[in-house]
């Protein structure tokens, strides 16, 4: 099946070389960024695209970013007439973005004396604040206008020079401008590192050869996916699951999918009809996120070392209803769609997939990123601070293996903020960091346990929680029990009284108050032996 003139070893080396460009961009970003969320937690992603905006390599970063970055590149290409030395910036979920804190940069790579970009390199990083009603920009908003500054695709670098007008407009609208400026510099730098490496690659292979290899790489991805899809049982598999609420009302919100496998053609169709209409609160996902979740699941069906490229989506079609919770329209708020709804979409896809190939699918993992944002003034410096962190839960049990405890699953893969970085950067003191024993669902194979993280505030602050799986627990499979639901508790510093927080809320807490987050366990797999 391989093209006659492409040698499989050459293809493997080329694929790894492009992949390492994405990884190197990530390393540059992490090593130069200022905010703990980027430098310690690696809440960023980098990818390389061909001249037509097709992704040819993704770093092993954050799946929710990766699957949706092609839309950023396409939006930038459509909106901007690029010239050499330009870099575009954007975050608008309705024009290539996913939620506002994720700021994306796109750099077109030009060959000498050509007026059309030959490649694009792109990176996306989660900024700990982009303005809006709540510090950290992840609060319970009702319109996107409350969630922070919206940046359509515009040039932040023109002909190699930073556009100060654009930059100052952005910085004036955020709570921690100096940190943002530093992180933006890092993103620009990472783009240039990627550009340099792409130039070296083209120099080594020659442009024509590189183009041939790209085509082959995309075809190869497609062949791998089709080979998997040909082995699937024919038919339709239907599943649903729920979000607890949208943070505004208590009403549960439904995510539903119908998967149709066509093994003869080696194709898959996913239809999300029956999912809730878009909601007032922030758990709306734009279509890019839904596609991103589908991309992730397809990629997981492939062998471990398979490249993640645009070829993976060729045998796949997606249907969503515009104006639904999986295909939101402006001005719906979307901060939680990226982090919470994306996980539920994966849960639903896996539940449907488990009916088709039960021996290949794990039970539900924690299903929430347990997002915590805190903002205020650091009494040590008198400067504003904004903190953002997600906390891992339990992984669902696998057929044949227990789930792993305290690990990020599916659409996220950030690291924790080391306590020694956290207390240096923010007025908090960590009290406890431990496994949450017994939270994993029982079964023949146990779900992984969630985590407990408790911190004390050393300054008054605005605290925002955005979490789910309080009511609807991570499901077990094949008779395995559900994982324990998550919870968050505030202990008042003065009185010692405890108060349980709703999953999605924003409140003022005082110096001395303690916040304890307990994340859900994963579901069990198979009936527990008696």
């Amino acid at each position, binding site marked *: 099946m391989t093209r006659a003139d492409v040698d499989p*070893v050459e293809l*493997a*080396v080329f694929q*790894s*070389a492009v992949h*390492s*460009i994405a990884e190197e961009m990530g390393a*540059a970003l*992490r*090593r*130069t*960024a*200022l905010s703990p969320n980027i*430098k310690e937690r*690696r809440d960023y992603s980098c990818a390389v695209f061909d001249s037509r905006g097709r992704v040819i390599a993704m770093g*092993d970063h954050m*799946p929710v970013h990766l699957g949706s970055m092609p839309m950023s590149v396409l939006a930038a290409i459509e909106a901007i007439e690029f010239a050499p030395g330009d870099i575009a910036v954007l975050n608008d979920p309705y024009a290539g973005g996913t939620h506002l804190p994720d700021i994306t940069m796109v750099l077109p790579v030009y060959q000498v004396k050509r007026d059309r970009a030959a490649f694009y390199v792109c990176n996306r990083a989660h900024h700990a604040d982009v303005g809006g009603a709540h510090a950290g920009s992840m609060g319970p908003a009702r319109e996107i206008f409350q969630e922070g500054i919206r940046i359509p695709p515009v040039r932040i670098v023109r002909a190699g020079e930073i556009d100060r007008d654009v930059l100052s407009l952005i910085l004036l609208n955020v709570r921690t401008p100096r940190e943002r400026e*530093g992180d933006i*510099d890092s993103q*620009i*730098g*990472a*783009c*240039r*590192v990627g*550009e*340099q490496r792409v130039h070296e690659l083209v120099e080594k292979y020659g442009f024509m050869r590189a183009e041939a290899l790209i085509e082959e790489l995309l075809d190869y991805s497609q062949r791998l996916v089709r080979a998997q899809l040909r082995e699937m049982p024919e038919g339709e598999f239907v599943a649903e699951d729920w979000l607890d609420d949208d943070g505004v009302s208590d009403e549960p919100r439904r995510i539903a999918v119908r998967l149709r496998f066509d093994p003869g053609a080696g194709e898959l169709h996913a239809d999300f009809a029956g999912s809730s209409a878009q909601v007032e609160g922030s758990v709306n996902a734009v279509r890019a996120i839904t596609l991103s979740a589908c991309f992730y699941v397809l*990629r*997981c069906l492939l062998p*471990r070392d398979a490249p*993640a490229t645009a070829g993976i989506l060729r045998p796949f079609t997606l249907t969503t209803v515009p104006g639904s919770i999986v295909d939101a329209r402006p001005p719906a708020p979307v901060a939680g769609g990226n982090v919470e709804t994306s996980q539920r979409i994966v849960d639903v896809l896996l539940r449907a997939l488990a009916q088709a190939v039960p021996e290949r699918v*794990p039970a539900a993992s924690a299903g929430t990123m347990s997002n915590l944002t805190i903002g205020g003034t650091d009494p040590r410096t008198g400067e504003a601070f904004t903190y953002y962190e997600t*906390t*891992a839960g339990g992984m669902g049990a*696998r057929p*044949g*293996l227990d789930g*792993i*405890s305290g*690990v*990020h*699953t599916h659409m996220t*893969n*950030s*690291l*924790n903020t*080391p*306590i*020694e*970085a956290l*207390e*240096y950067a923010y007025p908090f*003191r*960590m*009290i*406890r*960091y*431990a*496994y949450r024993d017994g939270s994993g669902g029982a079964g023949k194979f146990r779900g992984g346990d969630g*985590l407990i993280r408790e911190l004390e505030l050393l300054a008054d602050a605005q605290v925002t929680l955005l979490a789910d799986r309080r009511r609807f627990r991570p499901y077990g499979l094949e008779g395995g029990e559900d994982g324990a639901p998550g919870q968050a508790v505030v202990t008042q510093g003065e009185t010692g009284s405890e108060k349980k927080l709703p999953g999605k809320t924003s409140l003022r807490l005082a110096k001395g108050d303690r916040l304890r987050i307990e994340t859900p366990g994963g579901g069990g797999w198979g009936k527990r032996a008696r």
Partner: protein
Amino acid sequence: MRVAIDTGGTFTDCVYLADGRLQAVKVFSTPSDPSRAVMNGLARIGVDVSLELRHGTTVGTNTMLERTGARVAFVTTAGFEDTIAIGRQARASLYDWFAPAPVCLVPRELRFGVPERVSAEGEILRSPTGEELTALVEQVRASGAESVAISLLFSFTNPETECRVEAALGSLGIPVSVSDRILPEFREFERASTTVVNAYLAPRMESYLLQLEKRAKEQQSRARVDVMQSSGGIIAARLGAQEPVRTVLSGPAGGVIGACRVARWAGFERIIGFDMGGTSTDVFLADIAAGGAQLTRESVVGGVPIGLSMLDIHTAGAGGGSIACFDAGGMLRVGPESAGAEPGPICFGSGARATVTDADFLLGRLDAESFLGGGVQLHPERTEQLMCECKGPLATAEEFAAGIVRVVETQMEKAIRVISVERGHDPRAFTLVAFGGCGPLHACSLARSLRIPTVLIPALPGALSAVGILLADTVRDYSRTVMLPGDAIENLQAIFAELEQSAGEEFAAEGLDGTAHRSLDLRYRRQGYELNVEYDAQSPHRSLEAFHALHRRRYGFAQESRPVEIVNLRLRMIAAGESYAAEKRTLVPGNGRTALVTTRKIYFHGKFQESRIYRREALVPGDAIEGPALITEYTSATLLPPGCRARVDGFDNLVIAVGGEVKE
């Protein structure tokens, strides 16, 4: 007399200089007391008045790979006992739903909390009381721990409480590893993990190195013992015993230094090193013109992160002594379990489980007469019989043996792909430098599957790690974390002078003449990572300029106006190693006829083929040999499959053109 001794799982190699040439002696390792083998080796050499023993060991690596380290108690700030297991929350492979749980060397019942707290600024907020410390000591005692690792939150800002806990636990009489001494840097998980590895290795390495020093001194009261570090420099054994985590890749690091030296003499600048020993295989990639193999501070050994600066070496858990068996699903597996030196492979006479070496022997690839200079009796009938018993569902013992070789070579190929292809390097642009007792046997076949055109088998391939250890510099790193603003750069002289004085005294006390190299770790304020730049004592501000330039080159931007932070002052003290350069001999074209011993059948591609057997010692520069052939020597054997052609270069290395792909 300086002698380098590299202890492997199976053999112990000794190398020294005599009459301007490198000499090697190989003896069996004695795992129950590895120092016995060292003494056996020294006895064979016959040591003169001044013994300077330089040691490299795979004891640390093997302990990590085989999970045979101490039962470690982990002591940390109460409330954070699980941090050593939780790690950083990220999963290692993004798209694998069936990835195994990560490794943690400390089971739950061995994690202990101390009620204490230090703030980010180094202020002690809570100290453990005397009773609390007594209770801790009792808990640890009752746990049956053989070693302790202490890593308290923020101990690098104020180590006082760690010292108190250490003092209290000292009464247990087991080794205590303290994070502030092992890796005094922020990020609690990486610091704790490194400290735990130290504790995991400590009992074994400490008694071993001290025993070795004692024995050496018994032989010669003024003997001095040094040990190779994972970073490629030599330190005193006493220091190595206290901080065994620094020597976890001791033997392999010797291999890197040795391979780079030999390859450079032979004119090869870009190499992939392939060191296949008895228990494990190490691979690395080096561009010698660009300074050789890279150092990394993000190593993972046996699945456990280590935050110290080490040579970037990738280890696979299979070697010549690796045991082959069929797993529960009926698949043939090789390693990580090894037959080691005791009982050893079947063919050595006492082992009963099939190993890679047995497979090679059965396929005619080991020479019964010359193997290890005839020092080891090989048992063909026993091997054939037991291999037949182990062959599982396969038809013949030969098929089983060929299967073992194929499985183990696939593992080696994968390891090399990790360091080359996966990092964007095309293996075809490199030369494969194969060494270790088993490397030369498998090198050509491996090179062929990776399409590497040239293989270099150094002179003394079975002892190249020892050669590297012999030639390595003595290196010790000193540092001080200062966290100063960039404009303090003009005022660092005093601190450097202080560092240099104590370093100089330490070297002088050991009779070494060291040269100091000063550098600075700089970053823009509030970044999380530093760049290391040279410190220019004459005009220190040049270091700032160098920082901005390096930042721009490496990360795509720099801002001269942004505040810079001076994080660490670093001083590297180097005492140069043996100044030895191999002598190049004249090539005399020949066909190696005088070295031809016999012909014998060797198994290639599914059948036995008549092959010539040569003695490497009798080959001379300029000789050229066509495969199929086997070139045996004292420390190893090189297999030349059909289609490969070996030539002896002016340094007695074998340079092999693999297949018909490369014209000479």
